[in-house]
């Protein structure tokens, strides 16, 4: 029993940054914009959060400031992606990849002076986990029960129709991209302030990519994202917990999440549908163009 509780605790702890980043990506993808730059935005958020917390000694009040800085850093990076893909209508996938490299590189460069510095007064993890789950519920509510959610979804499904109805497509997309970026930044800050309180170049370790995959895995649903993140977290923990026990090579558990993503994609392909992917996902919008 204790063993199960412990495994669940690990799953939630590791799943929290995945969930936060995944929810962010769901927001901008629901509005029709793919942002593969999650990993880069997380790195920038991790550094911004750590830099503020370290510079201010992380008193109680300053944790908020650090989180705010992380969200701001993520949002700014995302807005760059927004400008390139929404206003200039460049390829979203290429721009997102570039953002990942840019974010990792800039964070690595600016973060040199913070490397090897420990952070004390480590904040507990559970408020972040609860907050992330609450956010998932809130997003589900907003998406399906409010006018804002309807506008967001219609921009992602059929921007031309949304435009005819008087919705400002570009504005909605910009807002969604900024929101997605700020959550990616927050996920990064969770890593550098809470999960492993320190900053090192490359500390995001590919989590951003898992979050991107998770969006597809959970079919763009915020509530399913909670279970998806915890499930990924559990598998991640089990690859170490079960190592050297029961004869199953730990590599099996390490690769299981990715195998599952491929499986889910293949299944939705077999059913001849793109899962729940927003219709206009990945396509820039220009008025009068079909």
């Amino acid at each position, binding site marked *: 029993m204790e*063993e199960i509780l*412990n*495994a669940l605790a*690990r799953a939630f702890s*590791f799943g929290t940054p995945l969930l936060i980043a995944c929810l962010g990506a769901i927001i901008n993808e629901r509005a029709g914009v793919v942002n593969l730059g999650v990993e880069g935005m997380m790195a920038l958020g991790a550094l911004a959060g750590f830099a503020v917390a370290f510079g201010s000694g992380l008193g109680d009040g300053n944790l908020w400031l650090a989180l705010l800085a992380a969200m701001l850093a993520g949002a700014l990076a995302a807005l760059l992606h927004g400008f390139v893909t929404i206003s200039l209508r460049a390829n979203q996938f290429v721009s997102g990849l570039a953002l990942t490299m840019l974010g990792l590189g800039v964070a*690595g460069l600016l*973060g*040199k002076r913070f*490397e*090897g510095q*420990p952070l004390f007064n*480590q904040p507990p993890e559970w408020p972040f986990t609860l907050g992330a789950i609450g956010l998932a519920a809130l997003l589900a509510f907003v998406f399906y029960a409010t006018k804002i959610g309807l506008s967001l979804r219609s921009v992602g499904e059929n921007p031309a129709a949304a435009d005819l109805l008087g919705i400002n497509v570009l504005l909605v997309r910009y807002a969604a991209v900024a929101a997605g970026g700020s959550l990616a930044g927050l996920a990064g800050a969770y*890593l550098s302030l809470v*999960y*492993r*309180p*320190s900053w*090192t*170049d*490359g*500390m995001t*370790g590919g*989590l951003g990519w898992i979050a991107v995959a998770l969006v597809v895995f959970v079919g763009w649903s915020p509530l399913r994202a909670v279970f998806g993140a915890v499930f990924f977290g559990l598998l*991640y*923990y089990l*690859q*170490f*917990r079960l*190592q*050297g026990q029961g004869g199953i090579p*730990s590599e099996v558990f390490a690769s299981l999440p990715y195998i599952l993503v491929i499986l889910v994609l293949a299944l939705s392909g077999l059913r001849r549908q793109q899962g729940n992917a927003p219709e206009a996902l990945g396509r820039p919008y220009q008025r009068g163009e079909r």
Partner: protein
Amino acid sequence: MGKSWLVSIVAALGLSFGMAQQTNLKACFIYVGPVGDVGWTFAHDEARRAAEKAIPGLQTQFVESVKPADTLATVDRLVSGGCNVIFTTSFDFMDQTLEAAKKYPDVIFAHASGFKRAPNMLTYMADFYQIYYLNGLMAGALTRSGKVGYVGAFPIPELKRHISAFALGVRAVNPRATVNVKWINAWFDPVKAREAAEALMAEGNDILAFTEDTASVIQTAARRKIPSFSHYNSMYRFAPDYVVSGQIVDWGVLYIDLLRKIQNGTYTTKNLQNVDYWWLAREKAVMLGAQTGMPINPKFEAALKRATMTVNGKRMSVYDRVMELNKDIMSANPKWDPFTGPIRDRNGVIRVPAGRRMTIKELNEMQWMAPGVVGQVPDEPK
């Protein structure tokens, strides 16, 4: 304008030719990781800077995060940039370094932690196995559950040697204790290191040690108030109440000695075939502690003084034993070595006969594991 530019080039050329006749030494370093990883590469870079300060006329340059497959290309670039001594600081650079040494017979190559040499290529290593044994003694004294957790990077001979030395120390104090190893298959991955540490604690390990390049294990253990041992650099500051001790490297003394001998002509591109620096505590290349000048965290002194063990039929405190051995390995002629026979592996096979010590070659190629180590490893002889 155009002419003055030409003149200055000619002047610079003339100057560098003049320098080359005397002491122009440009040492270049190829690193496997980022310099800020608080581990292996960071330590090498610290040493590079120390050498630059200590040796007049020495110029240095480094390239970080080089993939093993890119070693030769990086060497090409450095040689064309004027490097005449090149340090390749990772085991996986070995074969391409040897290739580079053949390609550039006028350049001196130095490869860390490997075993292949050439007339213009030497090998060097600062090794911790003696100190791991001392840490093992302390871990054995401090564990209540009899289970000591160990987060390992890769199951290669270097780690097998370190973990086995550690386990021999643990069992010298606590003959029934086990050292439980989890591999993360990465030198640098803070997330994996944390989850591996969490898994070890969930299994009841109440002391943690590790060989990988982050301070994650220390931070994770401290959250649950569990003591740990630091690795490679001063990591005391990450958890001052919970870091017991550890091992610290100082590549600086080794690099300075080597470069001085290259500068004064002792080492040339013709006579390195048998030059292998295998430096230990005696040469001050490694030392016991979680921080320079602090072999044992004072917070754990009392507990280690209370704990006792039997050495050659005499009872003594673990603290005294650690201090005694630490003094011995730092002396000019150490009498003690952890891999002194008779030693059996964990399958009961005699690996070091009574009265013998393992040679450097045997240590470098070690594949067996000492009794008490729990965890899968490949290439283990049956």
